[in-house]
C-alpha cells in the first residue's frame, strides 16, 4: 500500500487531496500510467507530464525513480513559492 497525495491544480483536476492505493507500479511513471487508466479526471491531470513534478517520501524525485519501499508519492505542478 502506498499513500498518493496531490497538490494545487493536480489535486483539483483529480478531485481529491490524498488516497491510499494498492499498486504494483515499479516507478512513479508506472503509477501515473495506472492512474490514467482509472478515469478522465486522472487522464486530464496527467496529460502532460512535463507540467508535473513528483516527490517520493517527501523528496523531489524523477518519474523513473523506483517506488520500492516508498510510503508516499506526491504529484504536483512546478512550484511557485517566494
Amino acid at each position, binding site marked *: 500500500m502506498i499513500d498518493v497525495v496531490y497538490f*494545487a491544480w493536480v489535486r483539483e483536476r483529480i478531485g481529491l487531496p490524498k488516497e491510499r492505493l494498492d499498486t504494483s507500479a515499479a516507478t512513479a511513471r508506472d503509477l501515473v500510467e495506472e492512474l490514467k487508466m482509472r478515469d478522465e479526471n486522472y487522464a486530464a491531470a496527467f496529460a502532460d507530464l512535463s507540467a508535473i513534478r513528483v516527490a517520493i517520501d*517527501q523528496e523531489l524525485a524523477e518519474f523513473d525513480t523506483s517506488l520500492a519501499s516508498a510510503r508516499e508519492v506526491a504529484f504536483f*505542478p512546478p*512550484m*511557485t513559492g517566494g
Partner: protein
Amino acid sequence: MSVRVQSEAFDAGAELNVFTLAQSGAGAVVSFSGIVRNNATGDLVAMEIEHYPAMTEQALETCRAEAVDRWLLTGALIIHRYGRLVPGDTIMMVATAAPHRADAFAASEFLMDYLKSRAPFWKKEHSGSGEAWVDARGEDEDALARWDEPKL
C-alpha cells in the same frame, strides 16, 4: 529557529533585527522580502498559498544547509507563509549573514532561486476575473541552473 513555515503574518523588520543581533562574527547582513503585488489589472483580491506540509520544512532546511555549505556564512534565515494573503502582505523573507558582503549577497540570491523552484509552495490568484494558479516561470528554473555552473 532558522526555518519557519507559518500562516501568521510576521514583521520582517523585527525578524531582521533579531537575526542580526544573533550573528557574532558577521560583517554583512543581506535580507530579501517577497510581497504580494497586485496584478496587471489591479483587481487582485487575494493570493492563496498552498504547500505540502510533510515536505516543506525539510525542503527549506535542505536549501538553507546548501547555502551554508557553499558560502562562508554566520547564519541564514528563511520564513515562508501559507494560506490566504492580500496585496501588500509579506509572503516570505530570507536573511543571510557573513563576514563579508559578497557571500551574504550570493547566498541570499541562491536561497531565493532555490525556493522558487524547489520548495513545495503553489500560488493561486483570486481576482475580479476568477481564480487561477500561478504558472511556474522558465526564468526561475534558469536562475537556479546558474548555480550548477562551476564557480570561476
